[in-house]
C-alpha cells in the first residue's frame, strides 16, 4: 500500500481538523449547535480527528484508514442506539450524520489510488 500523495494528505488533514473542531459543538446550543456532540463523542471525535491528522502528516494510508473505520464504527453504534434507553454516545441522528460524513470521507481518501501524473497530462 503506497503512501498518500500531497493532495490526499491535505484532504485527510482537513477532515481531521473538522473532526477535532466538531468537539466545539459541545459548547454551542440551540440553532448554533450543528450536531449533538457532548460527553463521550467529544473524546471520540478529538481522538479520531487527531489520528487522521497524524496519518496525513506521516502520509500513511493505514493510519487514515484507522480513523475512517473508527468514525464509521461510532456512526453505526449511534445509529443502532439512538432513541433507545441504552445510548453509549448519548447523541442523536445528527451525531450519526456527522460521524458518517467524516468516516466516509476519510475512507475515500485512504482507499484512493495515487494519481499518475503521466496519464493526467495526456
Amino acid at each position, binding site marked *: 500500500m503506497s503512501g498518500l500523495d500531497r493532495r490526499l494528505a491535505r484532504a485527510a488533514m482537513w*477532515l481531521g481538523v473538522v473532526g477535532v473542531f466538531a468537539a466545539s459543538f459541545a459548547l454551542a446550543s440551540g440553532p448554533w449547535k450543528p*450536531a449533538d456532540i457532548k460527553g463521550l463523542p467529544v473524546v471520540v471525535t478529538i481522538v479520531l480527528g487527531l489520528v487522521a491528522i497524524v496519518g496525513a502528516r506521516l502520509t500513511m494510508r493505514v493510519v487514515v484508514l484507522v480513523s475512517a473505520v473508527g468514525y464509521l464504527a461510532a456512526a453505526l453504534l449511534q*445509529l443502532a442506539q439512538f432513541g433507545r434507553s441504552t445510548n453509549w454516545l448519548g447523541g442523536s*441522528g445528527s451525531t450519526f*450524520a456527522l460521524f*458518517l460524513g467524516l468516516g466516509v470521507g476519510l475512507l475515500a481518501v485512504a482507499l484512493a489510488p495515487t*494519481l*499518475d501524473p503521466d496519464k493526467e497530462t495526456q
Partner: protein
Amino acid sequence: MASTMTKDAGGDVEPLPNRRMDRALIAALRIGVAVLWIQNTGWKRPPDFGEDSGRGLYMWTKFAVDREVFAPYAWFVEHVVLPNFTLFGWLTLIVEASLGAFLLVGLATRLWAAVGVAQSLAIMLSVLKAPHEWHWSYFLMILAHLVIFATAAGRTAGLDGVLRPRWRQSKSKAARLLMRAS
C-alpha cells in the same frame, strides 16, 4: 492572453468567473446545506418516529393527508407511508443523514444534490399547508440544491475535486459512476 469570451450556439457569452471568493462561496453553500440536513436529523427519533405520540416526524408527515397539497402524494402517504411508518422513518433518517454526510465532505455531490431536490420536494408536499410554515423555505431548499448540482459544488474544497482526476484514470465501473455522480 486567452479571450474572456467564449462562443457557443447562442453567440458570444461571458464565462462564469473562477475567482477564489466565488469558489469559497460555492463551498460555503454546500457546507451550509449539509449542516441543515445534519442538524435536522437530530429530532427524527427512532424507534417509532413519533407515531405513538402523534408528534415528531409522524405529525409532520401526516400533514400531507390532513392539509393536502397534491392529491396523488396525499394518497401515497395515507395508503403506503403511514401504514409502514417505522420503515419510512428509518429511510428518512438514513437518507437525510447521508445527505448531510456526503454534502459536508463534497463526495458524489451532484448525485446527493439531486437526492436533496427530491427530498426537499417530498417535505414540501407534506408541510406546505401546515400552520405557520413559510412556503419559501421549501422553494429555497430546492433552489439551493439545484445550485449545488449545477456548480458541481464538491469540486470546490470537496473530495470530488481531489478524487475526480483519479477516477478519470481508472477503468473501473465504480470510478465511471463516481465521475457521473460528482
